[in-house]
């Protein structure tokens, strides 16, 4: 007598097969044996601001949003553009109209299909003054048609240049030609939002009990300032390719505690406490990692009317830039693989060739000799020493660099420099209102293209705190927007900057972290460090 129905028996066999195959799971491409526990735990130095794609404004929040939601395009491990919700796009010759084709199998975590309308809603929401998004300026740099009027409330959000031609076709109209527009759709603020959930749950829609998302993971737990958990989304269109089951982000405010907990195996990825990279690289050569980042560190002269007369003389600016020994700062103070900077744009930026600017080619001795010469020409010397104030925002790291620079200027140029630190928001206010002589500055690229840095030094830029203004730079940058390959313009702008020296480039950032050796798939070559957890996996030890 057979008590077991056939289908059930088959089920048992299948289940047995499935479970045994889990234990022996291997990576489909590399063939590595996968760890049983596919939970990735990492730390955040601070609580993220939000997981609402149109609201999030910090990097750690954007990392989570990138897991929870998926935009039109994604990046691969090298930072190249690959299809996301869109399978591809076409553009017109003028590159001011883009048409994205959306895949038909993309789904929200509640089972609704992801359509072009979800993107239209999200982009309108980003620009809508009622949303009051701190990141709505991103819609502005995307140059969407009518974005200015929508943001100011003079036009309805419906006037924005984005239309769903049908469920799977999205048309975007721009006010100017943007060759790199598609790359901008990897930015978290362009990710879709589920209108029906936002409407019913209001501000609470991003809470784990309400949130609906279309990415590889869903948010299952969030305890503010302690932990957040995202787990794989079984309805994600490419879920079969996801290996990590669960990603846990712990908030650890202190980098030393963070590192201790990493050593105690509570974290798969942890922080390198500042100044300790060299030591950790020796002790943990396979875990301590340093990679170039799309960020620069510079000092900006106040060239506005409120700035000191001395800085209006280009020779003074050049002398100060020449006198700094960047190697001391990167190799003796920071010690984490930072790169000496002689250009504003980091060399790691896509399509940017670092031009051989003159002061970058000299030896430090030559630079110092040149610095003395320039300052003497400008009329400063022992009887008439240059004196000014350098301000930076309160931080041990900035303080060390400021003291080193002060010492270098004193030794090489005999300059009397006073240092002043200000708490972050006070500092921003002072710098933004040109209430300084020389100020610290730093900038991280919003996208992997030189204009994200160089636009900063154009006259109309709202971030140009030093008020540098050069007609040639302005026109080169304006032209660059419509060029297929603008690298020659960027090179020329860097050459102008090296001559005019409105800012002193100090170094280009390096990112450092500790990563357990069994975590694979980390996109080291993606300079923007746009991480997609679905590409990570843990191998058996």
């Amino acid at each position, binding site marked *: 007598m057979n008590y077991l129905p056939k289908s059930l028996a088959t089920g048992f066999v299948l289940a047995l097969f499935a479970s045994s195959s889990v234990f022996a799971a291997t990576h489909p491409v590399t063939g590595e044996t996968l760890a049983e526990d596919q939970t990735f735990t990492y730390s955040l130095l601070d609580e993220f601001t*939000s997981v*609402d794609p149109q609201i999030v404004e910090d990097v750690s929040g954007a990392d989570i949003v990138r897991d929870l939601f998926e935009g039109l395009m994604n990046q691969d491990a090298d930072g190249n553009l690959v299809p996301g919700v869109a399978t591809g796009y076409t553009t017109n010759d003028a590159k001011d109209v883009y048409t994205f084709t959306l895949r038909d199998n993309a789904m929200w975590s509640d089972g609704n299909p992801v359509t072009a309308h979800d993107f239209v809603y999200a982009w309108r929401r980003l620009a809508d003054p009622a949303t009051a998004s701190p990141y709505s*300026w991103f819609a502005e740099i995307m140059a969407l048609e009518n974005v200015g009027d929508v943001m100011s409330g003079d036009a309805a959000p419906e006037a924005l240049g984005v239309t769903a031609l049908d469920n799977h076709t999205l048309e975007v109209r721009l006010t100017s030609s943007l060759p790199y527009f598609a790359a901008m759709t990897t930015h978290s603020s362009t990710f879709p939002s589920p209108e029906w959930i936002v409407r019913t749950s209001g501000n609470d829609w991003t809470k784990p009990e309400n949130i609906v998302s279309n990415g590889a993971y869903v948010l299952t737990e969030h305890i503010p300032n*302690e932990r957040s958990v995202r787990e794989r989304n079984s309805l994600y269109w490419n879920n079969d390719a996801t290996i990590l089951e669960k990603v846990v982000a712990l908030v650890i*405010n202190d980098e030393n505690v963070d590192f201790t907990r990493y050593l105690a195996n*509570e974290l798969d990825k942890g922080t390198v406490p500042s100044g300790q990279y060299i030591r950790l690289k020796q002790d943990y050569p396979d875990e301590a990692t340093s990679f170039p980042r799309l960020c620069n560190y510079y000092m900006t002269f106040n060239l506005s009317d409120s700035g000191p007369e001395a800085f209006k003389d280009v020779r003074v600016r050049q002398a100060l830039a020449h006198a700094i020994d960047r190697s001391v700062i990167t190799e003796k103070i920071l010690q984490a693989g930072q790169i000496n900077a002689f250009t504003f744009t980091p060399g790691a930026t896509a399509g940017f060739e670092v031009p051989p600017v003159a002061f970058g080619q000299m030896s430090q001795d030559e630079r110092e000799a040149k610095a003395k010469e320039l300052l003497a020409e400008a009329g400063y010397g022992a009887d008439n020493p240059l004196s000014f104030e350098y301000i930076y925002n309160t931080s041990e790291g900035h303080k060390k660099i400021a003291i080193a620079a002060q010492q270098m200027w004193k030794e090489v140029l005999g300059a009397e420099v006073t240092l002043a630190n200000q708490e*972050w*928001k006070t500092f921003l*206010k002072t710098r933004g209102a040109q209430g300084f002589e020389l100020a610290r500055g*730093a900038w991280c690229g919003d996208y992997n293209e030189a204009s994200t840095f160089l636009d900063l030094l154009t006259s109309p830029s709202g971030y140009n705190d030093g008020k540098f203004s050069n007609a040639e730079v302005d026109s080169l940058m304006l032209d660059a927007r419509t060029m297929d390959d603008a690298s020659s313009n960027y090179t020329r702008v860097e050459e102008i900057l090296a001559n005019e020296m409105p800012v002193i480039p100090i170094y280009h950032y390096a990112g450092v972290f500790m990563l357990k050796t069994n975590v694979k798939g980390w996109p080291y070559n993606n300079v923007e460090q746009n991480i997609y957890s679905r590409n990570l996996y843990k191998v058996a030890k």
Partner: protein
Amino acid sequence: MINYIIKRIGIAIPTLLILIAVSFYLMHAAPGGPFTSERPLPPQVLANIEAKYGLDQPIWRQMINYLSGIITEFDFGPSYKYHDRTVNEIIGRGFPITLKYGFWSFIAAIGVGIPLGAIAAIRKNTWIDYLAVGVSIGAQVLPNFVMAPLLIIVFTLWLDWLPGGGWNGGSWEYLVMPVIALSTSYMASIARITRSSMLEVLNTNYIRTAKSKGLPTKVIFFRHVLKPSLLPVISYLGPAFVGLITGSVLIDIYFSTGGMGYFFVNAAFNRDYSVMMGITIVVGGLTILFSLIADLLYAWIDPKIRY
């Protein structure tokens, strides 16, 4: 007594209002605002955001709106930094955490501090006294920002007994290190206050009389020494308790507890006005409440004090 309590509450309300007004003004006097960032927002965007939160109105009106929200709806407003949370939610989550580790730290500080001080006083100038005094001075000079990482290295990294941080609903293994780190300096103060006040009591005439009557040491200690020597300790405990339960930013930072202290300090840096005000009001209110309770306890212990 009832009249005294009513009178104290009568004073508490204007005190709290003055606290609110001064904090509100100071907060807005600090340069920058909640939406000042390295990437200055386009003026239009900033205007939209400020209008949404009512920050475009004059300060006095903002304060009235804020107060009326609290009084009529017990609504402390939205957080400007954490957009999906209200101040009520932040305090509602953070305060119980702080309260829990603060309360246990208080118990630990009293539980260890008072016996330590008492033993030192009774065995004055013996090795026990020296040890107790040594321990308490050691505990006091070791700040908790040194203590906390040390505890984590010992208990998490070396011994692997306790998790290095987190809260996990406040289960005991997550509570041990925060409580040790937070309570030691309070414990040390309590031990030293207890010791010196007890020595004073032990030298009084009525203790000498009790001894000469031939009363057993235990009876003298528990009936005649303990209660009067705790008076200075009680007056210390009032503010200490408030200090413990209103949060320690260092504990929150080192042990990732998610308590209120970190939100408070962070709110100041972020210019998250509503969070800062909300926590100020809670801390201010508690300070007033517990100093009242300490005063009442004082009267209960010391018969010479009558309100």
